């Protein structure tokens, strides 16, 4: 049996508007990776969330650091979905 841990997921800007939510607490299996995270999000938010979250220009940050490749989640991690940024 997989042990579930809690992580925090944040959505910013256009993603927050598209999904209608800015932050959710999510149960994921301990040591969950990228695809496990997406499965948990789909269970929670419905399959409509897949297309905006997986868009090519959306970055994922784990604990405020952009992760371009695979990652492994642990309890208390903060995951953020970032649409294209621009400041100044």
């Amino acid at each position, binding site marked *: 049996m997989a042990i579930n841990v809690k992580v925090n997921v*944040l959505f*910013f*800007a*256009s993603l927050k508007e598209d999904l209608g939510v800015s932050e959710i607490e999510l149960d994921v299996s301990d040591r969950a990776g990228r695809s496990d995270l997406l499965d948990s999000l789909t269970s929670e938010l419905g399959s409509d969330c897949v297309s905006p979250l997986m868009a090519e220009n959306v970055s994922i*940050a784990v604990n*405020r650091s952009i992760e371009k490749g695979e990652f492994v989640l642990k309890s208390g991690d903060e995951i*953020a979905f*970032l*649409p*294209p*940024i*621009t*400041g*100044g």
Partner: protein
Amino acid sequence: MDEIRVQTDDFSVADEYEACGAAAGLDCGAIATFIGLVRHADGDSKVEGLHLEHYPGMTEASIKNIIEDARNRWSLQHVRVVHRIGTLPAGSQIVLVVVASSHRPDAFAACEFIMDFLKTEAVFWKKEIRSDGELWIRSTSGDYERRDGWDDGVSSVGE
């Protein structure tokens, strides 16, 4: 210590300039400053305002990285970056960059470098509130070209 602030409140150019002068010290010969404002017009559409979001913690860290990169390239005495968030009506101040150095080439180059990287690397999101609707803004191809221009020797002009 450099100054990085992300805030909803407006900033005072006079106060930031004075604080820079005080922090820079006796050998300061050059202070370059840039202020970005919300324009009323963008092409044919009238812009009523801008809505800015950030990611607390990560945004400040992204600005800190940009300043560190600038400090690795030029000799700088003090740097201040103040960036506003929230809803800003047209005409508002958005961002301030102040750079102090002994010499003007360093101050100019670093100030422009920091602005170019704020456009593409700082963790902000910007929505234009127009007369004909709202639009999330993305960095333009020109923004990326200017950022990438710092890799192929443009920066050496000032050195």
